[in-house]
């Protein structure tokens, strides 16, 4: 089973890297950008065959390691 975890910064947490990317996109001539927030993507391959169990396990992984829930949100997508 495959899953994708996306980790993004919470609203209200400043993202200087996103700002720098936004500036660079503007410098390349891309107009109309209202904001850029950057994050991380983790592709997981699991041995589990139960979707429910995998979902539970991934949530625990996110809470314990993949995301720092002080500053980050996470979303899990089963592929």
């Amino acid at each position: 089973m495959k899953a994708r975890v996306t980790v993004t910064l919470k609203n209200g947490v400043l993202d200087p890297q996103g700002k720098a990317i936004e500036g660079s996109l503007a410098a390349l001539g891309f107009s109309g950008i209202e904001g850029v927030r950057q994050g991380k993507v983790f592709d997981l391959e699991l041995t589990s065959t139960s979707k429910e169990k995998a979902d539970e396990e991934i949530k625990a992984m996110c809470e314990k390691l993949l995301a720092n829930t002080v500053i980050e949100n996470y979303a899990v997508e089963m592929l």
Partner: protein
Amino acid sequence: MKSAVILFPGSNRDRDMIKALEQISGQPVATVWHTQTELPEADLYVLPGGFSYGDYLRSGAIAARSPIMGAIKSAAQQGRYVLGVCNGFQMLTEAGLLPGALMRNASLHFVCKEVMLQTTSNNSAFTSKMEKNGIWRCPVAHHDGNYFADEATLKTLENDGRVAFRYAQGTNPNGSINDIAGITSENGRVLGMMPHPENLIEALHGGVEGRAMFESVMAHLDAA
């Protein structure tokens, strides 16, 4: 004062810390490899600076989940003194021993320079011998020192005098919220800070302002 320094793959300020502790305490300093699960008997446990695990995932994140951290957490719960400097501060927040998080510097640049620090509060074990509101200079060297905490956490830290050190005189090098450079735990026995006091303990360093912090812990121990 007996002290022990925890070593992680990628630590690089461990020797500076060991030397500083040896000089100030006059005692040999134990070292502990991160895969161990038990700590030697000591009064002060130190998580040194560096780039544990190459800062992969988030600075300090993987080190904060290494086997020795269970013992560090128990030691902190038992009221032992725990100090995290730079990468060590990042580990303490990642391990949940201190609140908040250390994010990428607002400038996005690695900063390596001297800053001015203000000892905001001298009610902790680490600051009791320091002059309240005293300003001292101290080196910093980091890429992820931008302290962040939600409003409620900040309010608690500020109201309870748990902001030990603040960047002063406009020298905030990283965009840290409220100019926070170091914070303590509720019992004042766990301190995390981005600047490097261990690099300012003998005349050859150009100053000895970093000593007071270690001497505070020693005085606390003597009084106990």
